[in-house]
């Protein structure tokens, strides 16, 4: 497996982590009512969206490099 393939895997896992973190932070906000938790949740979901955009950009940029 090349670094390209491993990086795509890494971005997918990171995106899932960001989504999970966003969900955790929103649940924490509902439990405690702290505004900082809501802000972290929004940042988590924004990071997930940014990672999806980046992953697609990366695949386009390195389309001529092998996955092996």
């Amino acid at each position, binding site marked *: *497996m*090349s*670094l*390209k393939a*491993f*990086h795509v895997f*890494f971005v997918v*896992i*990171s995106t899932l*982590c960001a989504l*999970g*973190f966003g969900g*955790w932070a929103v649940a*924490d906000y509902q439990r405690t009512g702290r505004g*900082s938790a809501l802000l*972290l949740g929004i*940042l988590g979901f924004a*990071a997930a969206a940014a*990672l999806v955009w*980046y992953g697609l950009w*990366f695949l386009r*940029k*390195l389309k001529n*490099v092998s996955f*092996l």
Partner: protein
Amino acid sequence: METAIPHLVEPHPVTGIPNGKFGIWLFLASEVMLFGALFSSYVLIRVGAPHWPPEGGLSSEVLNVPLGTFNTAVLITSSITMVLAWASCKMGSLPKFKLWMAATVGLALVFLVVKYFEYSDKFHHGHFPSHDNFYGIYFVLTGLHGLHIVGGIVVNTYLLTFGSKLWNVDREWFTNRVENAGLYWHFVDLVWIFLFPSLYLL
């Protein structure tokens, strides 16, 4: 008489990849076993504990979630700069490689500085690894991960400085070395992606 080391650049007929890449994957397999064993220990200790953390409260109240989140973002960004350093080699640009690799090393140092402040705060409040199982697990897992970050900094700094002379001798060989370092760096970052929610959030 000079002896040439085979399969530095061209794939080995048996594995289908250069020897360096095969070696780094073998090494990463052993790393999976190392962190897997420690992670399993953490799970077993945690499910057997009546309260986690033992002192009461939640992990997210004991550890600093905003700092952990910041460090997670730093490491994810460093993986992106690392792969861009490798891509720059692939596209034949050494100056861009140096730029992205310097950013990778810089971000790794930022991670360690933040970790230093986190550890200092814990020590200041008398929370050492011997305090209880929670802090024992926390310091062992994050400390071992931190040592891996230091190892990555050493390798990446070498490639950024003295090691980059290989670019003038054999560009493909140098690019393969950067790729191997990148595989290691991604693995270390991936370990943190699992450690952060397990230790800080759950």
